[in-house]
């Protein structure tokens, strides 16, 4: 409860949360209603600048950019959320098994994590996409795999730092089972770093999805995603800059939202930084 009271005072985290909620609402509204049909072409209104009729203008097929951004928000958010879910579940499992049981299994799992860490994230993602093929669900798998090691390392370090503390030892001494100790004593203590990592992963997921779609390896046209909108805008951006500006702004604002939330939460987590952090 204390946590939520402090969260209310943390304007950075609140600002982030507000942005995220705005996007979630936009994505939900977009299921039922968009100003225009996001995939319908209209050759009479090709590359129209922003106006009252098309607030953010139209693209090279005369499609309404605002409608496409609203539609794209659903895809980007869905991909980023499910990928983060995969990464966190996998990573938490690996990290817990590794940290709590230790031994040979720990050694093996950590070497696997080391190997995944030796690829630059974008390169690993495009490598996986190159092998699995350019499908939306493969984007989710690729992003999920890329960000699993971060969770695994974080959780393992957290479990290790708590495992040998006195209160855990006494819980073992009075006969607490492993699952009981994990769920009642260990997880509550590493929950906030995990939440911070989740918000970081959500932001990285949006960025990675947009980069993959931009390169033509992610969400495929005609379905709009912010990344592939930017990609097709490249041919017209000099005569119609709005086709490139608005989808990018949509990405920046949402990613900023996740980063603000994560950063604000980190303050709550580390009281040492509360006074000096800028």
């Amino acid at each position, binding site marked *: 409860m204390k946590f939520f009271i402090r969260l209310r005072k943390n304007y*950075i985290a609140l600002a982030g949360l507000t942005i995220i909620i705005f996007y979630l609402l936009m994505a939900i509204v977009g299921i039922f209603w968009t100003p225009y049909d996001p995939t319908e072409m209209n050759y009479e209104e090709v590359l129209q600048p922003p106006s009252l009729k098309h607030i953010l203008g139209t693209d090279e097929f005369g499609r309404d950019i605002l409608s496409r951004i609203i539609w794209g928000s659903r895809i980007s958010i869905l991909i980023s959320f499910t990928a983060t879910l995969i990464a966190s579940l996998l990573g938490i499992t690996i990290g817990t098994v590794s940290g709590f049981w230790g031994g040979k299994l720990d050694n093996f799992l950590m*070497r*696997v994590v*080391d*190997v995944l860490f*030796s*690829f*630059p*994230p*974008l*390169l690993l993602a*495009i*490598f*996986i*996409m*190159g*092998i699995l093929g350019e499908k939306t669900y493969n984007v989710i798998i690729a992003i999920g795999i890329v960000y699993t090691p971060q969770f695994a390392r974080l959780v393992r370090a957290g479990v290790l730092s708590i495992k040998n503390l006195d209160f855990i030892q006494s819980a073992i001494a009075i006969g607490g089972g492993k699952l009981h100790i994990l769920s009642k004593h260990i997880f509550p203590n590493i929950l906030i770093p995990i939440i911070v990592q989740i918000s970081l992963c959500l*932001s990285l997921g949006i*960025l990675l999805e*947009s*980069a993959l779609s*931009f*390169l*033509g*390896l992610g969400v495929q046209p005609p379905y709009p995603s912010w990344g592939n909108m*930017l990609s097709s*805008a*490249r041919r017209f*951006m*000099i005569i119609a*800059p709005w086709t*490139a*500006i608005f989808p*990018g702004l949509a*990405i*920046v604002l949402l*990613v*900023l939202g996740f*980063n*603000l939330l994560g*950063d604000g939460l980190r303050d709550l987590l580390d009281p040492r930084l509360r006074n*000096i*952090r*800028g």
Partner: protein
Amino acid sequence: MGKYILKRLLSIIPVLFGVSILVFFLVRLIPGSALELFLGTQVEATPEQMEELRRIFGEDKPIPILYLEWLSRILRGDFGYSLRTSRPVLPDILSRLPLSLELTIFSLFLSVIIGIPLGILSSLKQNPIIDILIRIIGLLGLSLPQFWLATLFVILFSSLEGLIPMGNFISFSKNPLLNIKMLFLPSLAIGLGLGAVVMRFTRNNILEVLQMDYIKTAKAKGLSQKAVLFKHALRNALLPIITILGFNAGYLLGGAIVIEEVFALPGMGRLALYAIFQRDYPLLQGIVLIISFLFVLINLLTDILYAFIDPRIRYE
């Protein structure tokens, strides 16, 4: 120090081994063998010819043996042949390396000359407005997709001659001045975002260090603000930045793909993209191996450099 370097060197061997296993077996997951991809659907071959081809392509043995043979060829510098051009892939990859290195170095350089001075300046004054401002700029640096920033640069500067390479890239050895001019905007697209991150990191570190006891001592003995900051605080505050830069150097080698794509620069990233779209797997394997090798190597060098500067690390 020698012992530390040796220990770290040995520790990357199993990692690189694991990388090679992953790169080899992931490509094996693809339905259809390299040979089938090479032949396509148009070529007809007799069973005897197929047998011969299978031997040439090394597909006549069990997979673990194939892996070991492949690995031993890699270790001898034979990365195989392109399925599209039939040329050895390694020279093609290495010919792209200088550009990727150059882009990485320029970007890091720009991020440092933007980030560190601003970080120091902003740490001199502490008030809520600057705090929030620096924080938001730092987070914005993390949130900007580099390819979008690059796209905006193209829109803004498209009228200026020579700033945007767009296909007619000129190498450093041919014309250094023109080369640097062409790489300026691509590097800035990366360096701005990274610079914002470096700035915030610098400032936070300085503020943290300024609370240390030895700084209080330095102040107590009457040193000027300037001397305390530059002689005592800065050295310790700037150390961790090496880690950030080192990590990003490795990251950029493979991560500048999007920037190379926007500015049509012939770097390794775009070659990787070409390999994927052409289904040229030996080329793709080669690029991924080389980049991750460099990535691991740069991280190792960062660690060693860090241990060299900060002796505490060596004894942990």
